[in-house]
């Protein structure tokens, strides 16, 4: 196997030592990778098993027989269709709100020159340091007084008002890379800022908007603390709370097929996120890297 190293002389001196090294390298990599993937395989394997096999010592990996009905059974034990619908409401709302508000705000912070801009932007960055716990209690009181508890308004409405400082930051970084001459030329032609924003910047920024949308969707899907605080009625739960509810329900008594069903439900909650990731890997990785580089 010829590896692509930067040192060209190595390419001609593939010795036995070097091959051994490569083999060890890939072996280490595969073992570590295996360890990381193991929990997922264990989850899948359990989700298809029948009870006696679940409690087999030492563990057996291949389900025999394969019990597909764990999936429908788990998902109808509690109303997971409702949970799914609630989660989608949450995710779509948050994504839409953040994309719209963060794009507008990021434009103001990057494409218009005005006095005080950078000072205010520091405030935006500083809010990222603020622990949610500090806002949590007064927000709860406020939303309670507005009779917004047990609805998705407390989780979705702030998104329309630029609550994601991270998204604003990310979009600002992208907007800054677009040449200023484009805006200046449009201004000379008499375009106002809103037109420039809608007609020139947004179309160019589609990839970065996709990053923000993706992150927000995932965050909504994974959020646990927010729904835990604002939602009490189990009919309004998102998947994250529903899954925990299922575990609590199973814990109350020894219910047959408890672990296979819990693993089946966990798989169902995880799969959409993993599928989205597989289709958007490049965008995703880019977003994380940008956020890490521009600290």
């Amino acid at each position: 196997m010829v590896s692509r190293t930067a040192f060209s002389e190595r390419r001609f001196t593939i010795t036995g030592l070097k091959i051994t090294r490569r083999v060890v390298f890939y072996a280490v990599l595969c073992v570590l990778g295996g360890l990381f993937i193991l929990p997922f395989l264990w989850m899948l394997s359990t989700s298809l098993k029948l009870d006696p096999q679940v409690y087999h010592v030492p563990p057996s990996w291949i389900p025999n027989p394969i019990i597909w009905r764990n999936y429908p059974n788990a998902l109808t034990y509690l109303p997971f269709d409702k949970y799914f619908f609630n989660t989608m409401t949450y995710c779509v709302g948050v994504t839409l709100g953040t994309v719209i508000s963060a794009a507008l705000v990021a434009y103001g912070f990057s494409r218009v020159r005005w006095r005080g801009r950078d000072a205010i932007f520091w405030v935006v960055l500083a809010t990222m340091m603020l622990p949610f716990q500090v806002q949590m209690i007064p927000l709860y009181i406020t939303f309670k007084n507005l009779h917004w508890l047990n609805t998705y308004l407390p989780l979705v409405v702030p998104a329309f008002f630029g609550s994601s400082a991270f998204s604003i930051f990310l979009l600002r970084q992208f907007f800054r890379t677009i040449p200023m001459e484009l805006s200046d030329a449009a201004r000379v032609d008499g375009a106002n800022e809103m037109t420039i924003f809608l007609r020139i910047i947004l179309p160019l920024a589609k990839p970065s908007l996709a990053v923000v949308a993706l992150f927000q969707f995932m965050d909504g899907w994974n959020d646990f603390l927010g729904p835990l605080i604002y939602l009490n009625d189990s009919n309004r739960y998102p998947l994250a709370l529903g899954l925990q509810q299922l575990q609590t329900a199973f814990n109350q008594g020894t219910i047959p097929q408890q672990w296979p069903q819990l693993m089946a439900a966990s798989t169902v909650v995880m799969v959409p996120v993993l599928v989205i990731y597989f289709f958007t890997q490049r965008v995703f990785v880019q977003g994380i890297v940008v956020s890490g580089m521009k600290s």
Partner: protein
Amino acid sequence: MAELTYAQNLRSGSAAPKKRRKKAELRRIAVGLGFISPWIIGFLAFTFYPMIASFYYSLTTYDAISPPHFVGLANYRHLFMDDSLFRTALYNTMYFVIIGVPVGFVVAFLLASLLNQPMRGRAFFRTVFFLPAITPLVGTAMVWLWIYDPQFGLINSFLAGHGFKAIPWLTSTSMAKPAIIIILTWAQGATILVFLAALQGVPQHLYEAATIDGANTLRRFWHVTIPMCTPSMLFVLVTSLIESFQSFTLPWLLTQGGPDNSTELYGVYLYRNAFVYFKLGYASAMAWLLFLIICGFSILLMKTSARWVYYAE
């Protein structure tokens, strides 16, 4: 409008262009503020007001039903003087910060270095290491509850099958914290990606120069790779520190703070005070203290960063 300013310009000589410039500047400020206005409203309503309010609540006793009752610094005094569970929570959290954060940091950096080697299938392995990070935390918690199951979980069942003693993962005070740190380390994919990007950004010519100077692999790693990655390391340290101080979901789902309060973290105890006991004033005092602690640690890190962070150029 433009004609008017032109006329003014003619009449009053040099004063007018200044005025016009000022007008243009005011206009730009208005446009800028207009664009960021959603954020301004959101900041005032959902960040600034809650900050002030929670500081006020922290000086009161408040149960969300009857109006807050002002008690001065009593909540803070109680936290420091009388509440032994608070001290336990602080200790547990520091354990996660001082042991968990560095463990995760080192593992992530080593994995990123491994991924940075010339290799085939990098995208595949990158995905493998990153996957746990995007998994919904609730799902992660359920899977690991099952893996750590004292009798039939993957690990203990394997150990029992091969004649070893079982490890009491989440059921013993000594193992519960390390058990959770293992999960956090497993789910560190974002950090790996940040490190990997930093490693790939190290200019190749630096390695070549070091090789010519006779540096071996280890010395190249120590004197080239690590210094060039220190800016990312600072970023990772600060963010994982902040996250670690606030962590709630995983311990809440796995152990609810147990056994015997050994995983009662700051975030868990705060949540319990706020939404289980409805001691909102007391919880607000905890929240503000947390904010100050986080600020203190972040500033400390930033201050020391001048000594060890290397910025090229």
